[in-house]
């Protein structure tokens, strides 16, 4: 665990790396990369971590640049820990609430809620995966829905051929998803900004059309999945067990993401979002870090696709449509990018608003209620525009970070 690394230890290997990179002939001029300049920043990085300050990207936008003057003394370290605890509270509350959902659903006899919340968690999982590149890496991918589709179609196509083992479904999904992500990421990450948005979109469209053309697997109409994935010890037919599986996966992914984002890897990733040129000048091979983040993020979405196929028992090309990619981005932004729980809160807001508008349970004049129900997507669009224009930090960001100014 790199957190326990003392500055002196942490520094030696990284300097070695530095040299190795120069030998690879990276086009970083020696003068632009003074090792003196780098050593303190790494030292601080480690020092800061030792104090247990879980600095979230949104709370500390300028990361590396601002590290120098913020070396806390031991006296303030305690308050840092308390602050970290306070920051962990919303996460604990959210997961506690999610744990209580099955009990409440059972009690009021409404298993419908179980499916709805499971859908929220699955979309939240996908959005959390996207958030890794979008929120922490600053890469606006408008094509992550294709990994959702890869996960779902792996289940669907294998089931259609009589393979029902969940482990096989997941292994195939992750293998294909990983291979695609490495290839696609390799090409996409050569670009940045607008071109990156467009090229991720183009790849997703490619897979969308591939799914549409799979006539033997339903083509345009999608593929109904006859059997759930078989997982030993679990019966996914049972909505409660399925719910707990989704919740468990979400908790594990969130925990691992938290660790990842606050590790050295996460620091480099956030650093290359804020100032890629400086990171390169410091000797970090940012391309590799970004590619690794992209592949990881894709794999999380693949897992979400696997779960989604089991929830809906259906795989459809629409899972890969660019509007769903847009929806995932929207969930991240809605909830608050670059925060751990933001995407989940965003997914909840997204799904609940969708249910609310398309059902319109409020006691409005019938004409108005009908109008909202029929054209709920338009009202949804207006909501999206309003959020972008006015709530720039997302719902979760607005809830947790008080009035603090952000980037």
């Amino acid at each position, binding site marked *: 665990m790199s957190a326990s690394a003392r500055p002196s230890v942490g520094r030696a290997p990284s300097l070695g790396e530095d040299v190795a990179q120069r030998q690879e002939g990276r086009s970083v001029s020696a003068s632009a990369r003074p090792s003196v300049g780098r050593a303190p920043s790494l030292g601080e990085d480690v020092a800061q971590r030792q104090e247990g300050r879980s600095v979230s990207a949104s709370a500390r936008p300028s990361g590396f640049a601002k590290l120098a003057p913020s070396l806390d003394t031991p006296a303030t370290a305690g308050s840092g820990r308390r602050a970290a605890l306070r920051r962990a509270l919303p996460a604990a509350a959210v997961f506690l609430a999610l744990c209580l959902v099955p009990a409440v659903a059972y009690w009021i006899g409404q298993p419908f809620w179980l499916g709805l919340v499971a859908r929220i968690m699955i979309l939240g999982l996908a959005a959390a995966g996207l958030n890794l590149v979008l929120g922490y890496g600053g890469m606006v991918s*408008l094509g992550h829905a294709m990994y959702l589709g890869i996960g779902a179609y792996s289940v669907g196509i294998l089931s259609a051929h009589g393979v029902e083992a969940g482990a096989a479904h997941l292994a195939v999904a992750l293998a294909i998803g990983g291979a695609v992500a490495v290839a696609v990421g390799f*090409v996409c990450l050569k670009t940045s900004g*607008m071109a990156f948005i467009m090229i991720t979109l183009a790849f997703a469209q*490619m897979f969308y059309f591939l799914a549409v*053309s799979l*006539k033997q697997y339903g083509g345009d109409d999608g593929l109904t999945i006859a059997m759930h994935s078989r997982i030993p010890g679990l019966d996914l037919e049972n909505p409660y067990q399925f719910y707990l599986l989704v919740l468990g996966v979400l908790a594990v992914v969130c925990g691992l993401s938290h660790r990842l984002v606050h590790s050295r890897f996460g620091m480099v990733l956030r650093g290359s979002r804020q100032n890629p040129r400086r990171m390169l000048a410091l000797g970090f091979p940012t391309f590799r870090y970004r590619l690794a983040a992209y592949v990881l993020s894709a794999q999380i979405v693949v897992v979400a696709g696997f779960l989604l196929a089991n929830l809906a028992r259906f795989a459809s090309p629409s899972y890969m449509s660019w509007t769903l990619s847009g929806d995932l981005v929207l969930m991240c932004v809605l909830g608050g990018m670059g925060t751990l729980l933001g995407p989940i809160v965003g997914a909840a807001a997204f799904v609940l608003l969708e249910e609310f508008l398309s059902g319109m349970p409020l006691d409005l004049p019938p004409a108005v209620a009908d109008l909202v129900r029929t054209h709920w997507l338009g009202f949804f669009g207006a909501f999206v525009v309003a959020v*972008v224009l006015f709530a720039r930090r997302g719902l979760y960001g607005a809830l947790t970070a008080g009035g603090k100014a952000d980037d």
Partner: protein
Amino acid sequence: MNAQLIATQVLNGLQLGILLFLMSAGLTLVFGIMNFVNLAHGSLYMIGAYLAAAMFNGFDSFALALALAVPATILVGLAVDRIVLAGLYTRDHLDQVLATFGLILIFNELVRFAWGSAPVYINVPPALAGTVELFGFPYPAYRFAIIAVGLAAGLLLYLVINRTRAGMLIRAGAADAEMVGALGVNIRLLNALIFGLGAGLAGLAGVMAGPILSVQPGMGEPVLVLTLVVIVTGGIGSIRGAFYGALIVGLIDTLGRAFLPAVLDALANKALAQAAGPAIASMLIYLLMALVLALRPHGLFPVRVA
């Protein structure tokens, strides 16, 4: 597979390319000069088509519909620009993507509210209903008219951009918008001009496409995605890139769909051709775009910065 079939498909490809050029020319300027990602550009195309349909059915004159629908689309575009988009120019691309994504939803529901979900049809104007004789074989006159109108619009655009003062400012803005503003040019006015120009071209594309496609809610999205492919392939901000990119994408897409299954059949076997032919054909342009971006990240015809 005879010469006539090939020639017809090439012309169809050109016609699609010309429509895409009308869409991309405006959008690439908005992208390149205003550095603004406008996904709602496809909605302007849809609005243009619907307005033309309404006016054509009202006045029974395609020329009048064309003459009224294009300025009306420009007005809609300018209104959207002022009301919603003006506040987003200084934001990052992500906010722009999301806000314009929301706008697409709003516009789709607005036209569904006004005209219903069922497709609206525009008849081909009687004067252009027949065929023209081209190189000794017949081709639908209306499709030929699309090519002609698109080329005329392209020529006009070329003259405006290369021969007028406003065009000079647009070119300067593409190179360095901030500096143009610092030199005392009203950059807001310039932006409105560019946005209006783009909206007008999108509206024109919508009007021209109306009689050969069904006019329905959501018709803008497939075109938008193709337009994005064109722009990125051609080079963001470059009209020349939009022109060649549009023709390349239009031709590859049309010819791929028409002939790839047959080619695969000839090269490999029938089963493969039937299974994979249509899939690969619809993926061709995306493969092209990925290839171009991987080899030349700034597109085939990037803006030349002296």
